[in-house]
């Protein structure tokens, strides 16, 4: 069946439908990772976005029950060059097509995704709409009428857990107790913490600092998440109070931006974001570079952070944007990329250890 993908700039691409039939709209973004589509699809940070992968052959290894990063498929739509009609991997339990159908997500294949990526690179990310049952005219009409631009929506409220829950070892087996502010957490963060003996309580993004600190956790973790941090004043306030409590705090991705804002900084939107598994990040202290997994559309303006005790620890080698912050006195640090990987390189997994080490030191 035919499907169309329309852009705010008037471009129309025709392809073939897969996954669910229907309509969707969202900000169109590209990811340059060559593996990990299942993780991308279920990453809450992609909420509200139509994701295209630059790698052309997708679905080759199917979908399995393990590699999910949240309880549902989060993307608004999925655009690929060639959906594999078959899949082959020992863990695969179903095809990508069946998976998207089951999760009611519209996909389109047969698209020149490189053309699409080049367009986004030139013009920046933009809104798009995807459909299997509209004429191009109807599709453009719907896109024009689409009331909320991606940047105007508080996506965090839509993806955060409605109620607090616990992940990890039983209380008596837990070496650490972590409170996590869920702006769109990926399961692998919880898995990484649990693997190191941490029991994590996951709080809704709207939880207050009092609620988060009520049970006297060993440390507080600020999760990644979707959307514009400027809409998250409530979370910034919470972070300010949490930081003020003197508890060890680690933030990743959106968590990094929230901390930046809490320290008085501002954020800006990147022209086409950082999404992929090959972003080089330089640690300004060691001079060493790690290859990181990234997924963000906004970044902190490093110069805007007023607090002289906060330093930029890492930068992106491609565009010099802020990739990490640290407070010189408080046990607080953050990184803009994903040490939990999934998908992507696991080179920066040591940050989990670093966080737990800070907790250990505080405990002593």
């Amino acid at each position, binding site marked *: 069946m035919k499907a169309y993908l329309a852009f705010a700039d008037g471009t129309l691409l025709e392809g073939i439908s897969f996954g669910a039939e229907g309509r969707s709209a969202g900000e169109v973004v590209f990811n340059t990772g060559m*593996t990990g589509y299942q993780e991308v699809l279920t990453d809450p940070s992609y909420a509200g976005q139509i994701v295209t992968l630059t790698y052309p052959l997708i679905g080759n290894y199917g979908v399995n029950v393990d590699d999910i990063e949240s309880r549902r498929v989060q993307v608004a739509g999925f655009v690929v060059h060639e959906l594999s009609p078959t899949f082959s*991997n*020992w863990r695969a339990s179903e095809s990508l097509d069946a998976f998207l159908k089951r999760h009611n997500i519209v996909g389109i294949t047969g698209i020149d995704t490189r053309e699409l990526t080049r367009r986004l690179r030139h013009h920046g990310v933009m809104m798009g709409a995807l459909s299997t049952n509209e004429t191009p005219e109807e599709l453009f009409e719907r896109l024009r009428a689409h009331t909320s631009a991606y940047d105007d929506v508080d996506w965090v409220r839509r993806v955060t857990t409605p109620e607090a829950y616990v992940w990890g070892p039983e209380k008596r087996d837990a070496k650490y107790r972590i409170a996590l502010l869920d702006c769109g957490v990926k399961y692998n963060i919880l898995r990484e913490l649990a693997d190191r003996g941490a029991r994590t309580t996951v709080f809704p993004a709207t939880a207050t600092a009092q609620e988060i600190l009520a049970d006297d956790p060993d440390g507080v973790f600020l999760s990644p998440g979707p959307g514009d941090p400027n809409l998250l004043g409530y979370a910034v306030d919470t972070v300010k109070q949490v930081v003020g409590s003197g508890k060890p705090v680690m933030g990743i991705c959106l968590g990094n931006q929230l901390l930046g804002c809490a320290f008085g900084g501002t954020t800006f939107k990147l022209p086409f974001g950082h999404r992929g598994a090959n972003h080089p990040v330089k640690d300004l202290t060691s001079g060493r570079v790690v290859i990181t997994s990234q997924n963000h559309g906004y970044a902190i303006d490093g110069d805007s952070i007023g607090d002289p005790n906060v330093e930029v620890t890492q930068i992106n080698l491609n565009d010099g944007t802020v990739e990490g912050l640290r407070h010189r006195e408080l046990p607080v640090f953050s990184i803009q990329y994903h040490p939990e990987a999934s998908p992507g390189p696991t080179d920066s997994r040591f940050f989990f250890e670093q966080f737990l080490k800070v907790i250990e030191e505080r405990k002593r």
Partner: protein
Amino acid sequence: MVIGSGPIVIGQAAEFDYAGAQACRALREEGVSVVLVNSNPATIMTDVEMADRVYIEPLTPAFLTKIIAREKPDGLLPTLGGQTGLNLATELATRGILDDYNVKLLGTPLRAITRAEDRQRFRKLMRQIGEPVPESWIVEKDGELVELSRQSGLPWPLIVRPAYTLGGSGGGVAHTPEELIEIGQRGMRLSPRHQVMVERCLVGWKEIEYEVMRDANDTCITICNMENLDPMGVHTGDSIVVAPSQTLSDKEYQMLRSASLKIIRSLGIEGGCNVQLALDPKSFGYYVIEVNPRVSRSSALASKATGYPIARVASQIAIGLHLDEIPNRVTGKTLACFEPALDYCVVKIPRWPFDKFTSADRRITTQMKATGEVMALDRSFESALMKAVRSLEVGANSLRYKGASQWSDMEIESLLTTPTDERLFAIAEAFRRGLMIEEVAGLSGYDPWFLHKIRGIVQMEKRLRDHAADLNRDEAAGLLTEAKGLGFTDRTIAELTGRTERDIRALRTSLGITATYKIVDTCAAEFEATTPYYYSCYDREDER
């Protein structure tokens, strides 16, 4: 001083001219004066324009010593001249000649090279860092063989290979202690040194390679991973290879990538290195097979497959630059410190000399036989494969192979089971005769994903034949577009539909089905490219 790899022999072809030429250029750009030695004048690296001083002299320690004595170089870059260059450098170092003339070994330290090349030391190191290596034993006496066969907990089945025989012939797979003794004794008789190697049998496992780089500041990156279509048991130089891997999930991809980085770190390599791994197709189990602590044929392939100039960057690392101090020459804006993202599929097929050596044993094993290789890129696997096939110049313009239809079913079965240069064509012929994917997978060990793709090509042959009559109708446009996307040439389409190549070209041009060109830019279009190269496809946008 840079040492070349000498004459072209099987296993050491033009890739080291490419590496050496890049090294010379990179070093001179950094203000280093280069003395180049190679016995092979049919190379670009031995051009007087490439190095400051060019010697075409025999590559022996004695002659190299004379050159060193004459030129008194400050440093020697050993890792760009293949195994020949590396062995010579090692010998010059161990003989004390480098010390005598105060020549520093650049890049990867000698210690790291020997650690990677010495089997026993390498295995020990791998055990220390917790990376699995397949169990293996060297047996030279009947008694030792019997003793081994009685050991408990052996990882059956075991592969037995006679040492120092051509093509490793005379070995076999042993499933029981009795078979081990029988095959082992036969192997010892066949071996000129009465020696056999017994190893855990990984036949049928996936063979995956990673090209990795490390600088003196311990920054490590992977340039490319590659998946061999031919499972373990075939030399990677004799395997059909695809980049990036196609059947690995992110978990598997990252597991092997992390292992590769851990290995390059533990060895202490400064420059490029190739890591070969075997992956169980049915679990996360894997083994480290081999590490090449130098620029290799695989790195030339990875360079061309990704646009990342491995030899050039390795040379820059060797003179002390860090990866984040080296620009990415393709984008001109970003740095060499990143991992290329591909937005196309790359297929390499070896070029074997069996057209010239008709009497040669065509079986391909762990001993490389190919003299060269071709590479093709496209947006689809099928088309990259088809382009590579017709680049081989073996008379095949597609998977239709002369004589294939005359093969008996028995012959096909044996061609699927025993790897030869004709296996790919036998797979296609098997599908033409209606074999199931599972059957072909069982016989060949190819991953079903690749087989599905190959069967798709074969099915298109039939569809074209079936639609020969109505090819001029509008509905045929879709079929033609699809066929071109799968890499069918006009000539093949013409043959299948009983027309001329010129007819088909005219027909498809009139339908607007023409090749478009895309760029290899190392970054999947994320950044603009300044010195790109092109490959054709039948996609929407043309970037030329």
